[in-house]
């Protein structure tokens, strides 16, 4: 077990290094560098002086030296300056991380609150009308692109019905810390969370339904029934114990999906998180922010995948091969 965890963690290190090299090279391929914009339109600074500063900052060094320095800084949380916002990138990100974490967390929780009961119902009572409705719903969830769904949700609930606010994460007129502020914040979360969660249920429902149908026919379930265990208990004590565990392991994959989904959902609802910041930064060619975001997201996904592999190997020892 320990050996597996160790090996899995070791695989992650070259992955992260490789990702950082790719991101660095992409950053180099983006037009402009740390000095672009800094002296733009300033007649007092001549081309020669800029060259001198470039030399001093090491921008003329070979790429691997620059890479080493860049990585060193990034590890310490220094991603340089944002040209557009004129402040350190780290500072800029810090203000948005909380919003994205909040959104992702609630989306994930709501997804499971919807998906787990539906999956169980669908698997336990196969081919009933409830199962058919759930399968149809799940089919829609699978087929619908997230941005189309989010837009339709916004149109329906914010514009046609006028129930919920759209845009931003809170009403700006309210003061932080008050009850109204809290309510407004929660209201602003409802639509983005639901838009993400309602169609993210697909894989969980599908997995649970298939797995329960499989488990139902296994010998240990037959034995339990033969011993006279009541049907409800057969599910709770026997089947679900086996079926639910791997869901914990899919968490890493769900997190990956959240990161992709957040780009669409945050930009549609103008929700001030990392995904929206990414789109804004790349539109305004604010490349230091873009680089930082791509690096952080990739690393997060790599770590997420590793964690889910490890969790899966704990709950299901058959995975621990090699």
């Amino acid at each position, binding site marked *: 077990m320990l050996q597996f965890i160790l090996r899995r963690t070791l695989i992650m290190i070259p992955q992260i290094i490789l990702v950082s090299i790719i991101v660095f090279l992409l950053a180099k391929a983006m037009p402009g560098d740390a000095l672009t914009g800094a002296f733009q339109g300033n007649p007092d600074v001549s081309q020669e002086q800029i060259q001198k500063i470039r030399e001093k900052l090491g921008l003329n060094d070979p790429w691997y030296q620059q890479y080493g320095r860049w990585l060193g800084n990034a590890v310490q949380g220094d991603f340089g300056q944002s040209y557009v916002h004129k402040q350190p990138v780290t500072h800029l990100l810090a203000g948005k991380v909380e919003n994205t974490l909040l959104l992702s967390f609630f989306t994930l929780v709501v997804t499971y609150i919807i998906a787990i009961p539906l999956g169980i119902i669908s698997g336990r009572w196969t081919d009933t009308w409830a199962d058919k409705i759930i399968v149809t719903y799940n089919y829609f969830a699978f087929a619908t692109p997230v941005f189309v769904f989010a837009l339709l949700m916004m149109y329906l609930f914010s514009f046609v019905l006028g129930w919920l606010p759209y845009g931003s994460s809170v009403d700006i007129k309210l003061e932080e810390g008050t009850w109204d502020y809290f309510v407004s914040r929660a209201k602003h979360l409802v639509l983005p969370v639901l838009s993400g969660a309602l169609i993210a249920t697909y894989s969980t429902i599908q997995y649970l339904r298939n797995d329960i149908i499989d488990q139902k026919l296994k010998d240990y379930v037959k034995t339990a029934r033969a011993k006279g265990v009541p049907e409800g208990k057969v599910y709770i004590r026997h089947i679900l114990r086996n079926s639910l565990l791997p869901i914990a392991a899919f968490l890493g994959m769900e997190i990956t999906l959240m990161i992709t989904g957040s780009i669409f959902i945050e930009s549609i609802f103008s929700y001030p998180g990392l995904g929206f910041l990414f789109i804004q930064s790349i539109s305004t060619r604010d490349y230091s922010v873009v680089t930082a975001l791509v690096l952080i997201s990739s690393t997060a996904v*790599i770590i997420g995948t590793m964690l889910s592999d490890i969790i899966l190997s704990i709950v299901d020892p058959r995975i621990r091969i090699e």
Partner: protein
Amino acid sequence: MKDTVIVDEKQLIAKEKANNPSLLRTIWREITHDKMALGSLIILIIILLSAYLSPLYIDQEAQHRVNFLNVWKAPSAEHWLGTDDGGRDVFGQLMLGTRNSFTIGFMVTLIAGLLGLTYGLIAGFYGGKIDNIMMRILDFLMVLPSTMFIIVFVVIVPNYTVVTFVLIMSAFAWFGKARLIRSRALQERELDYINASRTLGTPSLKIMFFEMFPNLSSLVIVNMTLTLAGNIGVETGLTFLGFGLPSGTPSLGTLISFARTPDIVQNKWWVWLPAALLILVMMLCINYIGQAVKRASDARQRLA
């Protein structure tokens, strides 16, 4: 006496053929037996025909002409779905967008299918060390947040055109296919016909593409139908964000991207809502057909 034996043999072969219809036949039978799939197929054909044949009944020139006297007109008999910010007919744009989106989704599926097939076949056929290395690379590629990377590539590529966009998208769309084909190829390579062919000295490439591939083709077709919808979704999504098709080539995403200000979302719904609903309908149809194709390829799941 001899004659009758030959006739019998022919009859046997004919009987065998009737019992083992081609994949296309099975798919057709499966679709006609599933009302939803059949309905989806009919709807999809109607949408695609009206989109691809639109040059016959829509004046293409008028689609690019800006007419400021006609801006943001609500739907009417003349403009079925009203007009956009440049006074252009939304219905015409919708047809043009459907054509572009579907063509691009199809191209990406095809190229990605080819990439995935080659990669998966090589890894699965050779197995062992080569497979191990290729799979580690694939594992790495699969964890990358692809939407972010596609957007970054779209922005930094010089001379950005539709072709580059298709290539960038394809470059991030083949990972799942490669893995799927590799796992089947690994099973296949243990079978006698491959071993026999190898012993006879057939070149590896020939075995892979002319002997192994035909046996995996149903898998490839199923996977491609299922990912087609997804690829159309990714393209329209990226275009919606402004990082998809270049501005000269309208897609369904271009129309939806009008929905950026509250005023347009609420009061000029005819510009973006039809495109959003059309994407939804197309996705559902393609997926339904895909499910039928999937069932057709697996005898245990067939309805027909």
